[in-house]
């Protein structure tokens, strides 16, 4: 404990950071004047940590006192967090949108336009690009998610990273990149125009590349990093094209300008729906890349090559949410109730379809994964797909002037984002805890000579089992997280998932025939989610240990438990609480307040549950119950039958999870080896061969083509030059041969030359 006390002392260093915002607040400053702290602090500390870490690499103070920059990073993030909370507080206090204006004009320029008088510089309509902030409920929610989770994950990472011997003296890289990543997300959420959104979006792409490739010497990590960057880059490029189109349509990329009246373009022209829809689809492709949706999903599982905090960061706090945020920003364009452009239903349908397909596919693949982080990765993909489906349905509703339903599912989808982020952040940290402790136990068991035992994989759930008693906090956290993801009634994700599934079906019943597919897919996925999340938990924590080292596992690393506890509480209670406060309406912009507006708490609970089950429609209510049945009953029970089991004799888990382990042993034990060896399972193991397909396509097209191009350049284009050169040399040798050395030849040639010239002249002049 003394040692731990010393560790906590390190935290004293962040107190000055924490004091900054309260000080500013106390001087009576306005939070909107200090939003830049959220971005600037991490940016400055990114450079500071990166450079200082390299200069003082291995230095005693740097390593022990500053945790190789981790403390500085945490401090910077605490500034961001406190500034964000300040901003949120003010926002909730003032109830309304908040725009800072452009503190500086980043790029100013003119545009030429054509009219009957010819070309001239456009006098109005087109504006340059500045930078400021734009806050509404969506960005406030995301800002909180990002700053809060980043802070917690950084906290967790200090414990996780600095106790891993393989990271010797390179953690400054991690922390620097980590806070830059965070900065990217903060900036993206705050930005008041599409270009700056894109800029921070790309920064996140870079950081994901850097962090996934943190263990750069591992070929798989280097490869995964490259894959992540390139796959998202494909999306980004389309996103950029979308931006270009938007600028052309509206003459500005500022949210304030564009959202003011999306049906009127630059110079008062009516916006062409087809054009705008194409532009938005381009944006959506970008979102698909970033949020790892089909068909640009291939990078996400590989991204598990990064350290576990990075996975938490990418999957919960930052990157994947970016895509959702972007799609959420499309609502004003299609909201016909509010100057939206008519005739863009297809957009919502496409988004919903992509979501449905991804949700189902990812859940299916998650069935067969044995790597604890991979299961979570596919779960992320699947849950994000839910949100996309919900947003797609929302867009469809909005465009059909079904504002109320649209707003509901829109808010529900965003609420799901919140729930998922909290749960998934915790799940990843918990899985990190498991991996970390298993790894330590393994090292401990083999006395550090793990160099000879590369085959051991601390992430493989087949090496675990029965950890519930060894890692009580982790097991509890993971249980709550899984429940939230599965959608166990009243816990976190339940509130939002029910809305998404129900409303998607509602849309189908109300004329969106094309939504049947996604609706069915996400319904099925609900059950599948129940199965694979339970499977993961049971495989890890329940049953008898499958490996001797489980006995040596202890929860002992400092820094790791705190965030798990905090997030467990939020996951377990936060969803319910926020739902009661009407967060769905608030997020969709229908309500200005987060408050209980029914007379009693019970009324409010019933009201919110009705939101989810939509009492006025019997069909939808049926769907709601089906969802619960599938996700709560069928999935977990099947998982328990196959993977469940009670702990070893004498082991005792905490009361919070004890019931689960003992319950899981009640459903018997079914052997699924046959199924696991089937061809279908094989295809799932191979991620349905998408990666292979892409690699094959690249290997067969671009690579040979580029090699050909290189050959072509060296031998044809430059070959022409070389040919000229060699022909000149050849001609030179030939022409020098004419000089035979014999004087009479010279005379002869001169005579012949002269005569032929005379003849020529004679011929010419007639």
């Amino acid at each position, binding site marked *: 404990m003394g040692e731990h006390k010393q560790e906590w002392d390190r935290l004293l260093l962040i107190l000055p950071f924490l004091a900054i915002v309260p000080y500013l607040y106390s001087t009576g400053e306005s939070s909107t004047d200090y939003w830049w702290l959220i971005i600037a602090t991490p940016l400055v500390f990114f450079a500071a940590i*990166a450079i200082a870490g*390299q200069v003082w*690499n291995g230095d005693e103070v740097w390593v022990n006192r500053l945790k190789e920059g981790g403390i500085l990073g945490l401090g910077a993030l605490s500034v961001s967090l406190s500034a964000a909370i300040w901003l949120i507080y003010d926002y909730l206090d003032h109830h309304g949108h908040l725009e800072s204006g452009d503190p*500086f004009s*980043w*790029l*100013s*320029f*003119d*545009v*030429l336009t*054509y009219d009957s008088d*010819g*070309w*001239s*510089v456009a006098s109005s309509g087109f504006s340059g690009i500045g930078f400021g902030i734009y806050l509404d409920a969506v960005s406030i929610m995301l800002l909180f998610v990002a700053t809060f989770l980043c802070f917690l994950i950084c906290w967790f990472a200090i414990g996780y990273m600095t106790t891993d011997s*393989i990271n010797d003296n390179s953690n400054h890289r991690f922390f620097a990149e980590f806070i830059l990543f965070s900065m990217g997300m903060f900036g993206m959420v705050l930005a008041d125009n599409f*270009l700056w959104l*894109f*800029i*921070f979006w*790309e*920064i996140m792409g*870079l950081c994901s*590349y*850097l962090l996934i*490739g943190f263990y*750069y*010497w591992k*070929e798989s*990590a*280097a490869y995964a*990093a*490259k894959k992540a*960057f*390139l796959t998202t*880059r494909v999306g980004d*490029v*389309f996103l*950029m*094209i979308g*931006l*270009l*189109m938007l*600028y*052309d349509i509206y003459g500005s990329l500022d949210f304030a300008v564009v959202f003011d009246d999306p049906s009127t373009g630059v110079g008062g022209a009516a916006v062409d729906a087809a054009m705008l829809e194409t532009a938005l689809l381009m944006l959506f492709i970008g979102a698909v890349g970033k949020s790892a949706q089909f068909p640009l999903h291939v990078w996400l599982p590989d991204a598990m090559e990064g350290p576990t905090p990075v996975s938490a960061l990418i999957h919960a706090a930052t990157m994947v949410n970016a895509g959702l945020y972007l799609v959420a920003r499309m609502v004003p364009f299609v909201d016909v109730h509010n100057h939206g452009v008519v005739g863009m239903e297809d957009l919502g349908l496409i988004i919903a379809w992509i979501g449905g397909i991804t949700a189902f596919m990812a859940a299916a693949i998650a069935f067969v994964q044995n790597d604890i982080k991979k299961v979570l990765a596919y779960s992320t993909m699947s849950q994000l797909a839910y949100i996309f489906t919900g947003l797609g349905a929302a867009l469809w509703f909005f465009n059909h002037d079904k504002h109320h339903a649209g707003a509901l599912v829109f808010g529900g989808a965003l609420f799901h984002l919140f729930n998922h982020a909290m749960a998934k952040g915790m799940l990843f940290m918990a899985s990190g805890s498991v991996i970390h402790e298993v790894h330590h136990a393994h090292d401990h068991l083999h006395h550090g000579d793990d160099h000879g035992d590369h085959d051991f994989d601390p992430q493989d759930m087949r090496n675990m089992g029965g950890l519930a008693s060894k890692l009580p906090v982790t097991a509890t956290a993971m249980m709550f997280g899984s429940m939230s993801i599965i959608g166990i009634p009243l816990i976190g994700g339940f509130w939002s998932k029910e809305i998404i599934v129900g409303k998607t079906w509602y849309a189908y019943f109300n004329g969106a025939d094309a939504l049947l597919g996604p609706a069915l897919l996400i319904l099925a996925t609900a059950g599948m989610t129940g199965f694979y999340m339970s499977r993961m938990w049971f495989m890890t924590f329940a049953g008898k240990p499958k490996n001797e080292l489980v006995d040596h596992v202890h929860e002992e690393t400092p820094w790791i438990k705190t965030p798990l506890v905090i997030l467990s509480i939020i996951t377990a209670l936060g969803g319910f609480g926020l739902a009661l406060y009407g967060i769905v309406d608030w997020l969709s912009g229908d309500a200005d307040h987060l408050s209980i507006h029914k007379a009693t708490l019970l009324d409010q609970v019933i009201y919110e549950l009705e939101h989810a089950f939509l009492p006025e429609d019997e069909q939808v209510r049926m769907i709601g119950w089906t969802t619960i049945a599938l996700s709560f009953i069928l999935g977990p029970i099947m998982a328990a039958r196959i993977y469940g089991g009670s702990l070893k004799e004498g082991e005792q888990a905490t009361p919070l999870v004890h019931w689960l382990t003992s319950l899981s042993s009640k459903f018997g034990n079914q052997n699924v080896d046959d199924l696991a060896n089937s061809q279908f399972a094989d295809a799932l193991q191979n991620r349905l061969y998408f990666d292979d397909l892409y690699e094959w396509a690249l290997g067969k097209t*671009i*690579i040979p*083509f*580029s*090699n*050909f*191009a*290189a*050959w*072509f*350049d060296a031998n044809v*284009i*430059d070959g022409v*030059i070389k040919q000229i050169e060699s022909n000149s040399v050849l001609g030179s040798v030939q022409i020098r041969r004419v000089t035979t050395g014999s004087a009479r030849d010279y005379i002869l040639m001169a005579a012949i030359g002269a005569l032929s010239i005379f003849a020529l002249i004679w011929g010419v002049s007639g």
Partner: protein
Amino acid sequence: MIESDPLTFITLTPLVVGLALLVLPYIAPASMADFTRKIARSFSMGIALAIFAITSALFLGQIGNIDWLDITQGQYVFQNESVILVESIGVRWVVGVDALSFPMVWLTAMLIPVSMLVEWDAKKGHIFHPLILIMEGALIGVFVVLDLFVFYVFWELTLIPMFFLILVWGGDDRRYASMKFFIYTFTASVLMLIGILVMYFNTGDASLAGTLTGHHFDLVSMTAQASGNGLIAGEGLRHFVWILLLIGFATKMPSVPVHTWLPDAHVQAPTAGSMLLAGVMLKMGAYGFLRIAVTIFPESTVVFTPLLILLGMASLVYGAIVCMGQTNLKRMVAYSSVSHMGLIFLGIATMQPLGIAGALFMMFAHGIISPLLFAVAGAFKHHYHTLEIGSMRGIAHHSPWLAGHMMLGWMASLGLPLLAGFVAEIAVMIAFWMTFGWLVILPALTLIITAVYYLTSMQRTIFEGGDPHVGVLPDTMHREEPRDITWHENAGMFVLVALTVLFGILPFIFWDMMSDWSTEFMLETLIHAMNSQGVKP
């Protein structure tokens, strides 16, 4: 002189001092010769820094107090009293800068000390550094003179120090490379010279004209004349001259298909040489194209826009694809320069102020980024004795600074936001979409290709390698202990990194005046041509 005629001062000082430092050791008495040799390196550096200081002072308004946004089209600041050089044919020493040329001058003044710093330990430093100083004079001269004869003189003068830099300090195949570099670009520029002469004999300002010929080389007067009735009578001849100029400038830029001198020259050149070659010399092409070809023949530029697109697109896309097939780091970086320079033509072809400003900023940003790339590649050559991608792995462990600079440089070059290159790219792209619509898909896809080759090259050099403490060292190391870059390489790269970030985050430092210039440029020249040629969106 610094106060009254700063441009002449910063042009001639490096030339004179560099030449003196080169020649003095051979004609001065022995003791003085030794002394000169000893101080040549630091003295060159001192002069280079002084010139950088003066140039920065010019920018910040410390000298002359210039409002850069207030310069109207065709007006030049710091213009001197013209000095007659050759009266018979009307050659004058006229210097002046505007928003088109000044960023280039500043870039040159900045890059010279940096490249000197990077190669601070070059062999025969008492020749190397003065040569770079001479290079500085020649390069600045190209950007500041406003007399086409003198412009051409400086244009070719840059070849000579570069020829020696490649020939004496270059790689194994430096003979071929230096010859090819010189002859290739010389051939193109003599064709350009014909174009200049055709322009020359159409000039008519009697007050400037040479006594023998009755014509003059004064660019300002030519521009004024061109904006009236067009400098040259006859559209056919105008187009022809435009094409001749294009050949000269496109080769320098270089644009596909006249780019093949560049990879050879770059691969063989010493680091400082590559840095200057990529950083400034390529920009001479773009600068000259805008300053002469577009300004004086706007109609031809409008007529030949499809050609510009074709060239730009070919450079951009084809250059990127060829990059992917390269196995030599420097070659790859060289082709990436080809690819990026394509964007300049595209930016001009958009005929939008935004596109032209983007092209200008591309010139500037690429002038910061590509030297960084070449400094990194040079450091690989220096410390690992090879440039083969894939002959080593996991270098990041041995050379963390190098890996860091490489990472940043590579990212900047592939257009990562908040780094200088992105600003130019996005500007050109926006303008490109406005003018050409879906054709934008090609440059956009190129962004992906660019990412592919850059990431692959990093993966196969600084990353991978299994055990972090060992990595895979190239055979060329001969069991040498791998080292990180030296302090001076590091310092030089740091400057470039800092500027890349600075201009990525705060592009408006130079962007505003470029954008301003572009708008005025469109208004004064191109817009008339577009209207008269009946260009419609």
